[in-house]
């Protein structure tokens, strides 16, 4: 993360002017000068892999949410038409319950994407506020708050999730809450690091002198200046949440049927691995990989374009 730390160094060097990377334009506080934002967007769009990533995400969203409007399938009641090979009205065949695999991919993707986006948003908000407060106050409060994070990080996330999924009957909302509850730790750590360096900056002192409160400093100055780190991390969080959800479902601790999910489709498909029913193994797996690759590509590209902007200055 050292490169992103440098970024803030560069920003505040400009005559004490506070340039956030993405502007809020409120009260002339953290605002991006137009050329900077333009440069970031430009470098981002020049990155071919970023375009691939964005295209894949758009395709995935259209496939999962618009696809079912055009491709009608019955995903609720089972039929005797089971494990049929692709063809004859079922482009990707049917599964062990007689559900159309293509249609199920669409429906299953909805919950994956919903969980990915919701977890990234919730975990980022909690993590950013926690980290900013810890780093801003510093001292004993910071030490205590960070030991809490260390403690939670020392228990592997998946084990906690499996425990919670075993105790509570999973619903979509509950899974989002539970996965968010273990995902805010990495943004908290990152933002706390940023806040530690930002709080001693001249412009923060200036706000103090002018009578600005802690809340104003955290929300209007520290968070906007750390936004690059935050956005990059949030993108990776979407990818991670989708993977975690798939793994939980694979282990049989995800949403109960008839709810569909890419992970649970694979967990059912594995039973037929010796029968050569490839359409129960590859489509769902490839769907997960493409979606996760897409978000990882976007995250890498945003990080690169933030770094390139520094080099061009």
């Amino acid at each position, binding site marked *: 993360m050292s490169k992103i730390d440098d970024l803030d160094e560069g920003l505040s060097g400009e005559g004490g002017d506070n340039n956030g990377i993405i502007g809020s334009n409120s009260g002339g506080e953290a605002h991006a000068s137009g050329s900077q934002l333009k440069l970031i967007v430009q470098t981002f769009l020049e990155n071919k892999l970023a375009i691939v990533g964005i295209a894949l995400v758009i395709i995935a969203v259209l496939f999962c949410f618009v696809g079912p409007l055009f491709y009608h399938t019955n995903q609720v009641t089972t039929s005797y038409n089971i494990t049929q090979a692709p063809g004859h009205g079922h482009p990707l065949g049917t599964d062990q319950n007689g559900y159309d695999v293509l249609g199920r991919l669409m429906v299953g993707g909805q919950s994956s994407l919903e969980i990915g986006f919701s977890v990234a948003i919730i975990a980022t908000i909690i993590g950013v506020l926690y980290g900013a407060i810890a780093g801003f106050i510093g001292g004993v409060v910071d030490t205590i708050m960070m*030991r*809490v994070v*260390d*403690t*939670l*990080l*020392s*228990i*592997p*996330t*998946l*084990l*906690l999730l*499996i*425990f919670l*999924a*075993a*105790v509570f009957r999973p619903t979509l909302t509950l899974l989002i809450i539970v996965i968010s509850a273990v995902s805010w730790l990495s943004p908290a750590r990152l933002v706390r690091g940023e806040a530690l360096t930002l709080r001693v900056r001249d412009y923060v002192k200036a706000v103090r002198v002018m009578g600005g409160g802690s809340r104003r400093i955290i929300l209007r100055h520290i968070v906007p200046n750390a936004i690059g780190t935050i956005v990059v991390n949030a993108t990776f969080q979407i*990818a991670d949440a989708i*993977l975690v959800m*798939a*793994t939980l479902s*694979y*282990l*049989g*601790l995800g949403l109960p049927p008839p709810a569909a999910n890419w*992970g649970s489709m*694979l967990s059912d498909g*594995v039973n037929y*691995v*010796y029968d*050569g029913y*490839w359409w129960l*193994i590859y489509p769902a*797996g490839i769907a*997960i*990989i493409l979606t*996760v*690759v897409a978000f*990882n590509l976007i995250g890498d590209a945003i990080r690169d374009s933030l770094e390139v902007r520094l080099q061009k200055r």
Partner: protein
Amino acid sequence: MIAFLVKRVGQSVIVLIGVSIIAFILEHLLPGGPAKAILGGRASPFQIAAFNHANGLDKPIWEQYFVYTGNLLHGNLGRSYKLNQTVNSVLATDLPKSIILVGSALILSLIIAIPVGIFQAVRRNGIYDYAATSVSFLLYSMPSFWLGIILILAFAVNLHIFPSEAPQGQTIGAIITNPRAMFLPVITLTLVSYASFTRYMRSSAIEALAQDWIRTAKAKGLSQRVILFKHMLRNALIPIATLVGLSLPSLITAGVVTESVFNFPGTGFRFINAANTEDYPLLLGIIIVIGVMTVVGNLLADITYAVLDPRVRYR
């Protein structure tokens, strides 16, 4: 060094206390409390009250916590009522097998990832660098269970080279005397950890190559080989200690998933089974032991780092 050790060990002790508090909270998070978890869902209020009284669960909460940690400090992790065994004895048979699986995958992935990462750094932005980066990127984005399934499909179902199931047996001997059956689980786990190690190794080597002493060595006219192996390698390898420590939780996670894919008779497989049979004492016992192992592993990694790189001690 002493000051560093005292500070670092102190931090770990605090985190360990934190782990015990989390386990305690998780136990009390159970619907109906610990009594219901042990007696079952149909226990009557009288039975629960009797059980609570007999086990000190009617005392104040802080007193319960001290009894709980007292038990933990005596190495008593409780009892699995589903298996009718102590958690300690379950772990004693399972944990060594998991350590062999995760340990061999860890060593194997380092053996592959270190040279590949250095090669990528030296020839960066070349065709081999892009190819290797794409492979690790793909592996990194792949669910580990799917990788396991694909390997089973290729090597067990289609080619019949390796069995699809890990070696079955209670003893460690049964595990290590069957390398053929160990192959697929170890390779799955190796590929998963290779993906993150090689990315890290590449950037660590690039950073080391940009240092002044490398430029000095070049200016002195030293050969490429001497620069790489005498000057760059030693510096690029130091962060590996921290990396191994930091990646322990994700290694363990991948281990749990891999064990479940291959029916490997280890702690991870036991954990998933315990979740499906609602065997809460066993779940909590495994969480505590793995938490402690992670904390101790991180501590050892940091101390190794400080021994190898004296600059860290004075920060």
